[in-house]
């Protein structure tokens, strides 16, 4: 199976082509770190990646994309592009969370064989967080919460942390007398990791955003003039 994976949900615009016939570690990747500009960068990056991997879009069996949590705009850039590619080629598209992709990235790097916490900066004093076993099984749901709450409720088996908020978590753990090893503070997953997870994913649900936060919206105050 040939999978094309895209991530634009965090601080990078990246994509990978993975041909499982050539082995799980054979992904061709392109990674461009960036905070904004994903929408402009993605298509040229895909064109370059396809040329480098010698593939055309008609050869792709499955499309994959990170669905969040991350920046709302970045999530939609990736999902819109992947849904468009899937629609126009008649192929399936699957979604992978950024948190699962970060855990898979750590696993690919051979960091640890123990459970790991993935912690991403969510601003406003909060982090996006989820813990995974060494096999990538979720230990609880993905959540957005203050770092202190995440550490307080972290399963005892988790002894390491990765992600842009990893150091923050390690410091918080230390403050409450717990040891959490910071294994890396990458701000985005490897697209090859997204592709690897997509190969195993259920292809029956199309990718949908995982925002974890409601939209910023309040009903506008009634400036209406009193009526009888």
């Amino acid at each position, binding site marked *: 199976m040939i999978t094309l994976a895209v991530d634009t949900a965090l601080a990078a615009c990246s994509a990978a082509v993975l041909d499982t016939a050539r082995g799980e570690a054979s992904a061709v990747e392109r990674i461009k770190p960036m905070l904004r500009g994903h*929408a402009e960068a993605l*298509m040229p990056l895909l064109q370059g990646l396809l040329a480098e991997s010698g593939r055309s879009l008609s050869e792709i069996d499955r499309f994959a994309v990170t669905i969040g949590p991350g920046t709302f705009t970045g999530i*939609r850039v990736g999902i*819109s592009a992947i849904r*468009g590619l899937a629609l126009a080629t008649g192929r399936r598209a699957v979604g992978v969370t950024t948190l699962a992709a970060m855990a898979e990235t750590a696993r690919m790097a051979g960091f640890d064989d123990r459970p790991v916490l993935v912690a991403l900066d969510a601003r406003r004093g909060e982090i996006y967080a989820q813990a995974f076993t060494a096999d990538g099984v979720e230990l609880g749901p993905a959540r957005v919460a203050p770092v202190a709450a995440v550490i307080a409720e972290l399963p005892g088996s988790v002894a390491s942390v990765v992600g842009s908020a990893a150091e923050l978590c390690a410091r918080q753990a230390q403050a409450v007398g717990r040891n959490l090893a910071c294994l890396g503070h990458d701000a985005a997953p490897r697209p090859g990791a997204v592709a690897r997870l997509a190969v195993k994913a259920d292809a029956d649900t199309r990718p949908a955003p995982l925002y974890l936060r409601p939209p910023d919206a309040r009903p*506008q105050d009634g400036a209406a003039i009193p009526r009888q």
Partner: protein
Amino acid sequence: MRVLGIETSCDETAAAIVLREADGAGHILSNVVLSQLAEHSAYGGVVPEIAARAHVEALDTLIARALAEAGLGFDALDGVAATAGPGLIGGLLVGLMTGKAIALARGLPFVAVNHLEAHALTPRLSDAVTFPYLVLLVTGGHTQLVAVSDVGRCERYGGTVDDAVGEAFDKAAKMLGLGWPGGPAVEKRAARGNAAAIDLPRPMVGRSGADFSFSGLKTALRIEAERRAPLDEATISDLCASFQAAIVDCLVDRTGHGLQRFIEETGERRPILVVAGGVAANSAVRRALEGFAESHDARLVAPPLDLCGDNAAMVAWAGAERLARGLTDSLDAPARARWPIDEIRTA
């Protein structure tokens, strides 16, 4: 050529297929619109993040429906066009990325369409209008007089210096407790009221140039309404009628100044005046412009109502018009929250 159009710049998710024949004739093969009115009405206006979330949820299904209704597959398309601006950036990105992806996957040319130009070119699709013509563009976000002399050649004669006319309707409806969107609500109440009951100002009327202003009118309405509070139903209807009449007078006066300049510059003896945008659905506005056109020996063209509000047929059509002139965009084209109609690339 057949072009897929995608529109996600505000609170309508839309997809359409349009056919442009070699002689320039246009046909709509499908035109589907999903309005987000229900999602936004509780907030009294469009909430950008809610709009963006709704667009990404619905768009790919809507495109599949547009193709199905046209009885076509992707291989029947000659191009893909998506609104790239102006508008709400979160929503624009959804349509833009989807359009780029389809273009990339099918090897089709891509056009990043200016939403205002799409409105301005609509009469060529609906009424086979020829260049040049003058457009009064009246929407929730824009109020402009634009002379259109070719694809990519729009000269802005004037625009609002404060609120757009649709925005003025919305704000009036809100202060009178009539809900959102305001245009249809005010029009409905105005039909029952006396337009001469309340004396409201006509900002800019009589002044040279073709600019508009509605902020002072809105403030005057508030003062008159507060003076009469608590409002009974008849007074609300009178306020609506008087407010709408003032708006109509402003639009007609400013259009008159624009038309005079258009005639001077083009030498057109029977100039074409087009009214486009969501506010063109207001029947009082249409009636007044019909009378104005007749008395000025101009031909008024008002596209059908489903092409006045935001839609994707106009985007597909603008894309087809540009493709026919070899104007395409690369796949790194950005979304643009602000994109004045006279800053469109012409070559």
